[in-house]
């Protein structure tokens, strides 16, 4: 216990230094600023803002990233409530009750409850993270390369079969991502792979390019021609209208608790992430909530439950990413990639070797949450006016921002053009209704997975039974198999769920 307090103290000491506090604040602000833009989800926001952190030292950079992460999620909820334009699948649950509330003139209350629920969910999840991560990382030290391979397989399969209605397409995107991740020089044999005789690709395709192109540039292409809702211009959101009534607060209390607990649990599972958490929290409200029949018509419970679950899960999703080095969803994969860029290899050794980073990160998560709470309630008017900027004025700015961000990384012209190419590719894939996020997960896992496969086979001397001999490996493999077959078994269940959660 004393050790724990010592660590927490150390974390706060790191996170509370004026410099890190400033960057956390900047991250939250910038994240909300970009995240609130319609159609731009947390992934795109983090991808676009990632280069801003390259000039900072690793600890500060990660803390700023955490701020961006939070800000982008909060901004995304704002856009979903006010415009019914969810940036992510997870945020679409918030739309179900948030948007009707906004139409009924209670947008301010919905936003306020969102902020409070997110804060509560985040706080709960941070405690879970502080307790669970060190234990998990001790456990992870005993894991073999075959276990890791199995775990990555499980994560990838879970990420596509649990969400999305086209599991085959999702799997194809994961595999495509794995292949993109393998581009460039193979570290073991020195063989150059998939470079198409272009020296530019000998080092592979950098994460920033893939993320910015596939999420940033392609979102811009997809959103051109769309415009924000007319009715919003007439909405007035004042600080007074934000204040939830005593009744609202009382009714949100239990859903927030349920959402936080459920979200924290679901988030740790590989591949599940915040989307599933939000859906499940809503489904639970639909079953046990005292006002379950009114859900969907715009009541606070419908906002409080998914938002707290969403935020709690996106927090605990970082537990496997940080302690095992195996991200569960695309967003934590991006965070993992960002850590790698800063020379930190997440995994079982992160906590023992870089305690200042882990505990600093945790403390800054909490501070990021707090800054959000303080920043967003008074500034909600500003975010709303952001939403009122017509898109045709906004997108040249976003585009220029992407271009400068990319150019600042390597001062390379080819990089900027490459982002355009990837953007068009991402746009084409989304036209064909391929989910793009699994690609990023595959991209991050590609080299890791291959390395663990090679190592396992080397250790076993070519005996493939290493992948099912040990009980732990076998269990993970079986789980992966079950999840792979899940879409076949749950067609009926999915249809029922789709009926229960109308996606107008």
């Amino acid at each position: 216990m004393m050790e724990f307090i010592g660590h927490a103290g150390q974390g706060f000491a790191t996170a509370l230094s004026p410099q890190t506090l400033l960057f956390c604040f900047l991250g939250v602000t910038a994240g909300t600023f970009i995240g609130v833009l319609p159609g731009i989800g947390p992934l795109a926001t983090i991808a676009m803002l990632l280069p801003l952190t390259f000039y900072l030292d690793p600890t500060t950079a990660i803390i700023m990233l955490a701020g961006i992460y939070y800000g982008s999620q909060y901004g995304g909820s704002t856009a979903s409530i006010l415009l019914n334009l969810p940036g992510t699948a997870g945020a679409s649950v918030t739309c179900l009750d948030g948007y009707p509330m906004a139409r009924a003139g209670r947008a301010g209350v919905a936003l306020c409850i969102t902020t409070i629920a997110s804060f509560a969910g985040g706080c709960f999840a941070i405690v879970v993270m502080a307790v669970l991560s060190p234990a998990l990382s001790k456990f992870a030290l005993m894991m073999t390369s075959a276990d890791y391979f199995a775990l990555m397989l499980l994560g990838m399969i879970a990420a596509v079969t649990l969400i999305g209605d086209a599991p085959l397409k999702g799997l194809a995107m994961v595999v495509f991502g794995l292949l993109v991740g393998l581009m460039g020089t193979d570290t073991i044999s020195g063989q150059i792979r998939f470079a198409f005789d272009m020296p530019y690709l000998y080092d592979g395709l950098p994460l920033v390019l893939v993320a910015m192109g596939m999420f940033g540039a392609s979102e811009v292409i997809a959103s051109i021609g769309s415009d924000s809702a007319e009715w919003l211009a007439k909405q007035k959101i004042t600080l007074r209208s934000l204040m939830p009534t005593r009744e609202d607060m009382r009714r949100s209390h239990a859903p927030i608790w349920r959402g936080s607990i459920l979200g924290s649990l679901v988030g740790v599972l590989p591949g599940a992430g915040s989307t599933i958490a939000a859906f499940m929290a809503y489904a639970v409200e639909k079953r046990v909530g005292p006002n379950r029949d009114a859900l969907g018509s715009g009541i606070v419970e419908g906002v409080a439950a998914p938002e707290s679950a969403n935020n709690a899960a996106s927090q605990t999703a970082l537990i496997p990413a940080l302690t095992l080095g195996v991200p569960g969803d695309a967003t934590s994969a991006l965070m993992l990639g960002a850590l790698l860029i800063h020379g930190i290899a997440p995994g079982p050794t992160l906590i023992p070797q870089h305690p200042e980073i882990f505990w600093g990160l945790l403390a800054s998560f909490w501070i990021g949450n707090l800054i959000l709470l303080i920043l967003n309630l008074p500034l909600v008017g500003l975010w709303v006016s952001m939403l009122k900027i017509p898109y045709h004025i906004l997108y040249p700015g976003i585009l220029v921002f992407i271009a400068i961000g990319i150019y600042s990384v390597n001062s390379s012209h080819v990089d900027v053009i490459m982002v355009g190419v990837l953007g068009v590719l991402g746009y084409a894939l989304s036209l064909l209704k391929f989910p793009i996020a699994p690609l990023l997960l595959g991209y991050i896992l590609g080299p890791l997975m291959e390395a663990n496969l090679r190592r396992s086979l080397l250790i076993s001397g070519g005996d493939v039974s290493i992948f099912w001999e040990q009980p732990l490996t076998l269990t993970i493999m079986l789980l992966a198999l079950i999840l792979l077959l899940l879409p076949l078994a749950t067609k009926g269940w999915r249809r029922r769920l789709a009926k229960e959660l109308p996606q107008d």
Partner: protein
Amino acid sequence: MRSIRLEPTDAIGGVLVTLIGLVTAGISSQYPIGRISNIGPGAFPLALGIIMVLLGLGIIAGSVGRTGSIPQPNWRAAGVVMLSLTCFALLIGSFGLVPAILVSAFIARFADNRFHFRRVFVLACSLALLCWVIFIALLGLPIAVLELPL
């Protein structure tokens, strides 16, 4: 004549995935495959290529007998975004940040029909100013603001 109904996004997507899988498998089989106890750089991508072919065929099979439509692609937007980024890339090295921003913002506005010269000019200039403040003045990025190659 009886025609077979295919869901177009799945049919086209499936063909695309199959092709990528085939190309991948073809390329990776040229790399050393190694032995099972010490697999070479070709083995993992070869396996992935084969999996991708199977997935692609599965997606095509799933498209049979369903109907659907592909969303109308906005190729103009895609082209303009590409052109805008390319111009930015070509200008920033030899002319500096401000000309690159002005030109790429200007081009970007061609993506939709509401093009007013004066408004675009104001937009481009304010963007240039904003970016200068954020990236050069605040963040101190080592990018030349304006260069005149003589």
